[in-house]
């Protein structure tokens, strides 16, 4: 079994990008931390030969679902938003193409999930389907519809 440090080094970046795609850049950091802490806890029991990336993305998916659930339950305060001092990382230029990221966020959840898990996390459609709770065919269709929508939106400058 690989030392967990090697797992973090290999898969940390892709899990971060999945978290950002699902939650946006700020909440992504908490989701990343929770994902790897949960993974560390369970890691000794992981069967050898498991698809580690798929396993981690599944955990990240569940953490993101939890966060979104909390987010929708807690009423958003009106007025001034308190500054998030706990955010890790120096402020700097926003590396996201925010306009395009907005388009991703605007996709229906199933399409967004299918696009992220298929094209970003590089999972097989069978795994995408398991995460989204749908058939493999439906997962394929969601991914292709999602990509088509994004291309339709930005087709001109993305050619």
């Amino acid at each position, binding site marked *: 079994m690989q*030392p967990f*440090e090697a797992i973090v080094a290999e898969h940390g970046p892709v899990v971060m990008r999945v978290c950002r795609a699902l939650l946006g850049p700020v909440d992504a950091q908490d989701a990343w931390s929770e994902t790897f802490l949960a993974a*560390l*806890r369970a890691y000794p029991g992981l069967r050898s030969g498991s698809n580690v990336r798929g396993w981690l993305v599944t955990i990240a998916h569940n953490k993101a679902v939890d966060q979104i659930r909390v987010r929708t339950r807690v009423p958003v305060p009106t007025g001034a938003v308190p500054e998030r001092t706990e955010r890790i990382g120096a402020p700097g230029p926003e*590396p996201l193409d925010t306009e395009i990221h907005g388009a991703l966020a605007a996709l229906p959840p199933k399409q967004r999930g299918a696009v992220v898990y298929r094209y970003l996390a590089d999972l097989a459609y069978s795994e995408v389907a398991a995460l989204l709770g749908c058939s493999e065919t439906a997962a394929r269709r969601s991914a292709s519809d999602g990509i088509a929508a994004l291309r339709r939106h930005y087709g001109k400058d993305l*050619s």
Partner: protein
Amino acid sequence: MNDRQLIDRMTGAADDVALAQLRVRLAEQAAEEGLLDVAYRTMDSPIGPLLLAATPAGLVRVAFDRENHDAVLVELSAAISPRVLRSSRRVDNVARQLDEYFAGRRRSFDVPVDLQLSKGFRRAVLAHLLEIPYGRRESYTVVARAAGNAKAVRAAGSACATNPIPLVVPCHRVVRTDGTYGQYRGGPEAKHMLLTMEAASDSNL
């Protein structure tokens, strides 16, 4: 632009600095929650880069460059736990004391050691090695007797040669009866360098 590039552009590259900080925080949280079974760091030394690894009980492994640190981490993962993370906090004190030792300003180490990687007679040998003072040398014969089996000279030799915590458990102070150095996990040059250094600075402290 293909589909993958489209998504790449949408999510941006992962920020290396933020990720590095998140990894530090992960190790800290893991330690707080009792999930950091093996913490490690590396350090430079006059005998090459060293790997220092510790369990919550204490220093469990010191590895030389020639042992291949990645391979050693895989061994620790199998022998102790795969919950292995790079994290300085638990081993910084060891690194500082080793720096002082190599600078000739320290003669003994004050750090907890975890001897779990050695069993039986080998462990008894290591426990005895901790009592050999700075600058002194002992023969494998004397070590075997002190560890409880005067006939087990070869076994005492292999216990020294496979010592998981060299430097801190000073197996380099054990030499052959004829005065030649015998084998060492860090290589014969490293053993020679350590014994020469200890002999030279012994009177200066």
